[in-house]
């Protein structure tokens, strides 16, 4: 299983805080997963998830490039942080 989470502005724009996906029983990388989400949910998701300043985290660590995923991973999409 894969857990996909969306936060803040991204969560609101997608009207979705998260999804649970079955593990595809094949190799899967982050960019392929993102492409699948876009293909499945339409142009509005594509516009949002491909925004320039999108931050992606795998298992609660920010990743700046593509990376292999594993069954059980938690993937998050969120905008630049503004705490403090």
């Amino acid at each position, binding site marked *: 299983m894969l857990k996909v989470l969306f*936060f*803040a502005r991204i969560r609101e724009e997608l009207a979705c805080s998260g999804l649970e996906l079955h593990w595809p029983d094949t190799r899967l990388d982050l960019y392929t997963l993102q492409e699948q989400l876009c293909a499945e949910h339409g142009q509005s998701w594509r516009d949002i998830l491909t925004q320039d300043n999108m931050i992606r985290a795998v298992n609660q*660590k920010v990743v700046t490039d593509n990376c292999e995923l594993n069954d059980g991973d938690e993937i998050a999409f969120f*905008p630049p942080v503004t*705490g403090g």
Partner: protein
Amino acid sequence: MENISINVHEADFDVAGLQRGLLSGLSEEGAVATFTGYVRRANDDRQVSTLELEHYPGMTEQSIKTIIDEAADRWPLLAASVVHRVGRLSPGDQIVWVGVASTHREAAFSACEFIMDYLKTRAPFWKKELGPFGEIWVSARQDDESRAARWQDDSTP
């Protein structure tokens, strides 16, 4: 480092209690630097009536731990504590507290500022302002990125 404390919660906090906690069990503190952030009453001339703070539970605490560990690699620290509120806040409310104890003030000051700079740019918190103008997600400030980046040019303070 002897004491590390990280707390993310909705409730308000008491700076004196936090500072006592920071020092508890220490036998050689000489210096404590702290920072308290407050909800601004206005931002870019928008009158803010409510601030909503969202975070990424789990990753938030992890990323703060990483920031503190990096500070402890750079300076000789005795204790560090971070409290960050989430949920609905009002102008003037306390929002974040960072406290650092060391035997010397230069380490305490530098580490406290370092932790704040990284908290602003690395920890997954997001602010939304509510007011007469409606709702606005606060944009990340380029200036915050610059302030965090300067620690990389200056890794041996």
